[in-house]
């Protein structure tokens, strides 16, 4: 009897850990905690160097706030589509979940495209990675964030492919939730960057 109970427990309780949380989800949250330190360092570096232009144009001189606002809005709305994808999968609506995952990846792609456009326009204005300390710090910070978004898109697309192959089922909802955690984190980092780097005026 105890064997049968133990077997059933293993079969039906995916979170049979000391914390009651699956190890993968716990690991993702720990990872996100360490990511706070990474982005904290990059943001602090930019704040220290943002006015050091060495007599050349600063990134703050040519920020295109209306354009970046649209990009920020797009990334914010991708968080909505991400939770809708998880919600649909938890309800067992695999097709709708796949649609929302694809939409999230596409919105992420629009954001990254906007970032590439911004970097290109900066370069045309004479601001490269090594132009001055401010530009180095700016490109490092926003570039790291862009890489994070790009990795998130890869994760989302792998979920879309798995879903098309019939390998993403309601019982795999936690996988989508974990990718979602990463995606939302990337979004909240941008919420911070958008305010502190773009909207708060330079001295």
């Amino acid at each position, binding site marked *: 009897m105890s064997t049968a*109970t133990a077997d059933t427990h293993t079969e039906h309780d995916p979170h049979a850990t000391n914390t009651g949380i699956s190890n993968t989800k716990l690991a993702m949250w720990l990872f996100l905690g360490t990511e706070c330190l990474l982005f904290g360092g990059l943001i602090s570096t930019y704040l220290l160097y943002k006015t050091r232009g060495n007599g050349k144009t600063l990134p703050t001189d040519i920020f295109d706030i209306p354009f970046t606002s649209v990009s920020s809005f797009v990334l914010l709305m991708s968080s909505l589509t991400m939770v809708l994808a998880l919600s649909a999968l938890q309800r067992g609506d695999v097709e709708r979940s796949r649609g929302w995952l694809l939409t999230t990846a596409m919105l992420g792609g629009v954001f990254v495209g906007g970032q590439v456009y911004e970097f290109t326009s900066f370069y045309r204005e004479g601001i490269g990675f090594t132009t001055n300390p401010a530009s180095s710090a700016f490109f490092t910070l926003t570039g790291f964030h862009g890489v994070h978004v790009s990795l998130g898109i890869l994760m989302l697309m792998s979920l879309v492919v798995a879903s098309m192959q019939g390998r993403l089922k309601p019982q795999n909802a936690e996988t989508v939730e974990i990718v979602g955690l990463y995606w939302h984190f990337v*979004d909240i980092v941008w919420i911070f960057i958008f305010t502190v780097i773009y909207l708060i005026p330079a001295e």
Partner: protein
Amino acid sequence: MSESATDTAVGADDTDDDDHAHHPSDAEYIKIALVLALITGVEVFTYFESVLDWGAFLIPSLMVMMVVKFWLVARMFMHLKADKPILSQFFVTGIVMAVAVYMVTLLAFNFF
């Protein structure tokens, strides 16, 4: 024996359902997104100083709006409100450590 097994299975399913029951509905997610969009709109509005002079209130206002957006996404979209407190503790620890370490760094470099 089978009765005990069934009881355990039902209990496990109930726990799973209970986890998801605390998650917001799709309609609530959309309402949260609308609030986030509205706050973003106000943030962008502050940029156009010719419309309204925010003066000394500009930076505090922007910081408050940023924190509200951050809090809404973390609590509702990342489900920290419904999940076990240990996850919030991990995340808050990371944030507190980052803020503490980099505030000291900024102070050391006379940023303020």
